[in-house]
C-alpha cells in the first residue's frame, strides 16, 4: 500500500465542501418600494431573476448556445431600456444541463426559490422531468421545443406552432401549389417523441388532403445508427417526396446515403432537421436541389419584417459577433414572450410565482413582430397556438443557408388541427 496523503486530503475537502455548500442558504430582504418582494424579485435592488436551464455542453449545445444567446440579447436590450416596468433589471441565472435530465432537475431545485420563472428549459426529457416540480411549486417555465404536449400545460409558456403544424402546412402546400399532386409521399422519422409529433402532422394532412403515405420509415436516433436500409426502402417504394423528422447530424448522414444511392426525391424537413453547417458541407449541392425546410418567420436579414429589423439592430448593438442562426431567433422570441409576461405581472403588481401564473393567463396575445406567429394566451385550455409556417429552400449564399419559398402561410387544414 502506498501512502497517498493528497488523495486523503482531497476526499476530506470534498466532504467539508459538501457541508459548507449545504449550509449556505439565501436570505431575503424585507419588502420595500411599491411591489412586494418575492422569490427571485428584489424590489430594493431592482432585479428580477430568470432561470435558464440549457445544454451548453454536448452535441445539443449547437442548439443550446445560440438559443441562450438569443435569450441574452433580448433581455439585455430590455435592460438597456430601463428594464421591466421601466425599472426592474432582468438578471439571468444560466445552468448547463448537458442534456441530462438529472442535471436539469438538480438545477431546477437549486434555482426554484431564487427565480421568478424559468425563461428557458431545453430538452423534451428535461422539460417532462421538471413538470412534476413545476406543478407542485406553482412555477412557470418556457420550453424551448415545439412539442404539442406543452400547449395545454398551465405551468409552461410555449411559443411557436407545434411540429404538427409545420408538417401539415408543408405537405398541404406540396400537394396543392408545390406541384406534388398525385406524387408518392413518404416519411422518414426518428423513432422518438419528436419523430411521432411530425408523423402525427403528416397523418392529419394525409386525411385532410386525401393522399396516402406510400412508405413510412423510421431510424434510431442513436449515434452510429445505420440509415442505409431506410433510404433503400424509400427508394424501392418509389417515393417522390419524403417528409424528414431528424436532427442536423442525422440529416447529414441520411442525405449522404441518399445522394450515394442516387435517390433524389423532394425532401421536406421539420425545422430542427436543418442547421447552417449542412449548407456549407459537401452535401450543399444536393441539399440546394432537393431539400426544403418547414419553419417559421423569415430569412435572416429580411428587414421588411419588423421583428427581424429590430433583432438585427439589437445584435449590432449588443452582440455584433453573433453568427446568423435559426436557434438564435427562437431564443430571442422566447425571451420576448417572457418579457411580455413579466411586464404584465409588474402591471398587476405581483411578481410572486402565483402572480406570474396569473399574469400568463391575463397577458392577452403574445406578439413577435412577425418572427413567429402571434400567440393568444389565456387559461391553458384557451391558448390559440399560431398556425403559420414558412417554407425555405437551401441556398448556401444566404446567411443561414436558407431562402424563403413561401412566407408565413397557414392552410385551412392547419387551422383545423387542435390539441385538447
Amino acid at each position: 500500500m502506498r501512502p497517498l496523503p493528497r488523495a486523503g486530503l482531497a476526499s476530506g475537502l470534498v466532504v467539508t465542501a459538501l457541508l459548507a455548500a449545504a449550509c449556505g442558504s439565501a436570505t431575503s430582504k424585507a419588502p420595500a418600494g411599491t411591489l412586494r418582494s418575492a422569490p427571485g424579485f428584489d424590489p430594493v435592488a431592482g432585479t428580477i431573476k430568470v432561470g435558464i436551464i440549457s445544454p451548453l455542453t454536448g452535441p445539443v449545445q449547437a442548439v443550446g448556445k445560440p438559443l441562450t444567446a438569443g435569450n441574452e440579447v433580448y433581455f439585455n436590450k430590455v435592460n438597456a431600456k430601463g428594464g421591466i416596468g421601466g425599472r426592474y433589471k432582468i438578471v439571468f441565472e444560466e445552468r448547463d444541463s448537458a442534456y441530462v435530465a438529472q442535471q436539469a432537475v438538480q438545477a431546477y431545485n437549486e434555482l426554484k426559490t431564487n427565480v421568478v420563472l424559468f425563461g428557458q428549459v431545453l430538452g423534451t426529457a428535461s422539460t417532462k422531468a421538471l413538470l412534476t416540480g413545476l406543478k407542485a411549486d406553482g412555477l412557470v417555465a418556457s420550453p424551448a421545443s415545439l412539442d404539442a404536449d406543452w400547449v395545454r400545460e398551465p405551468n409552461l409558456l410555449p411559443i411557436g406552432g407545434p411540429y404538427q403544424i409545420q408538417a401539415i402546412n408543408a405537405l398541404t402546400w406540396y400537394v396543392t401549389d408545390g406541384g406534388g399532386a398525385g406524387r408518392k409521399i413518404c416519411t422518414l422519422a426518428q423513432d422518438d417523441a419528436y419523430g411521432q409529433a411530425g408523423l402525427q402532422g403528416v397523418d392529419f394532412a394525409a386525411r385532410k388532403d386525401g393522399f396516402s403515405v406510400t412508405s413510412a420509415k423510421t431510424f434510431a436516433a442513436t449515434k452510429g445508427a445505420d440509415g442505409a436500409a431506410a433510404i433503400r426502402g424509400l427508394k424501392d417504394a418509389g417515393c417522390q417526396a419524403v417528409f424528414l423528422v431528424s436532427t442536423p447530424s442525422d440529416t447529414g448522414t441520411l442525405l449522404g446515403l441518399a445522394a450515394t444511392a442516387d435517390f433524389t426525391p423532394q425532401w421536406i424537413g421539420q425545422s430542427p432537421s436543418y442547421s447552417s453547417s449542412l449548407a456549407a458541407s459537401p452535401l450543399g449541392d444536393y441539399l440546394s436541389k432537393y431539400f426544403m425546410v418547414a419553419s417559421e418567420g423569415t430569412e435572416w436579414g429580411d428587414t421588411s419584417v419588423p421583428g427581424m429589423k429590430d433583432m438585427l439592430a439589437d445584435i449590432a448593438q449588443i452582440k455584433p459577433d453573433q453568427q446568423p442562426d435559426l436557434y438564435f431567433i427562437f431564443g430571442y422570441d422566447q425571451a420576448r414572450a417572457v418579457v411580455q409576461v413579466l411586464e404584465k405581472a409588474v402591471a398587476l403588481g405581483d411578481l410572486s410565482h402565483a402572480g406570474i401564473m396569473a399574469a400568463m393567463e391575463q397577458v392577452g396575445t403574445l406578439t413577435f413582430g412577425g418572427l413567429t406567429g402571434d400567440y393568444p394566451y389565456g387559461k391553458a385550455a384557451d391558448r390559440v397556438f399560431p398556425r403559420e409556417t414558412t417554407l425555405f429552400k437551401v441556398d448556401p449564399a444566404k446567411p443561414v443557408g436558407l431562402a424563403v419559398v413561401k412566407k408565413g402561410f397557414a392552410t385551412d387544414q392547419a387551422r383545423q388541427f387542435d390539441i385538447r
Partner: protein
Amino acid sequence: MTKLVELIVSGTIRGALYALVALGFVVIYKATGVINFAQGGLLLIGTYLTYNAHVTWGLPFWPAVGLATALTALTGVAVERTVLRRMAGQPVFAVIMVTLGLLIVVQQVVPAIWGYDRLNLDDPWGVRRLSFGGIHVDLKDVWALAVVAVVLAALFAFFRYGRYGLAMRAMAIDQEAAMAQGISARRVVALSWGIAGAVATLAGVMLAAGSGGVDPAKDVIALAAFPAIILGGLDSPVGAVVGGLAIGLSQALTGGYQPDHAAFLGAGFDTVMPYVVMVLVLLARPCGLFGTRDVVRA
C-alpha cells in the same frame, strides 16, 4: 436482387470499418490480454489531428493523414508509458476500467479543443461515387476497402515475419517464456499501443471522409465493433476481419429485410443486431469463433 447486392455492398463496407477498429483491439489484446476501451478515443484523436493538419495547417491530404497517424501512434505509446505500465500485473477488470477512464477524458478534451460542430474533412473524394451496373458506391468507400486490405496485409506480414510481431505472438502465448527468450515485454506492449493508435487514425479518417464528417460522437463505432472482436475471438486478426464483416453484413441485411419480414422486432432492430449475434455466438462458443480458450489457473 439489386436490393440484395446493394445491401451486401453497404454491409461489406461498414463491416470493413468495423474490422479496422477491431484490429486495433486485437493488437493490444495480444500484447496485454486486455480490451482497450480507449480505442474509440484514439480514433477521435487521430481523426481530429488529420483535420487539423489538413484543413487548419493546410497540409496536403495524405501527408496530413500520415502525420496524424504518427502523432496518434505516439499518443498511444505515451499513454501506455505513463498510465498503463503502472497497471502491469493488475486484474483484467481494473485495466479495462483505466482505459475506460481515459476514454471519458478524451471524449471531453476533444470537443473542448475542436468544438462539437460537424467539421468537414475536405478529403479528395467528397461525395463522388462510382457505378457498376446500376449499383452506386461512394468513391471513399472503395478507398476504405483498399485501406483495410493494406492494413490487414501489413499486420499479417508484421506478425508473420517482423521481429516484434513474432515477439508479440510469443507474448500472447506465454509471457514469461517469451521474456526468458530475451523479448522486451515493455517494448512489445508500447509498440502494440502505437499500432493501435495508427490503425484507429485510419479507421477514423475513412469514417469521417465524404459526407461522414468529423464530430466527437464518431467514437461510438468502437462500441459497435465490440461484438466483432467477441465474435472473431479477442486474439485473432483474421477473426477480427471475419467478425467485422459478419457484423456489418448482418446489420445491413437486418436493416434491409427485418422491417418488412419481422416487424414485431421493432424499429431500429438493426442497431442492436450485432449484440444479438454476439450473444448467440457466445452461448455456443464462449471464446468466439476463432479465439483461444483461456486456461483456468488455480
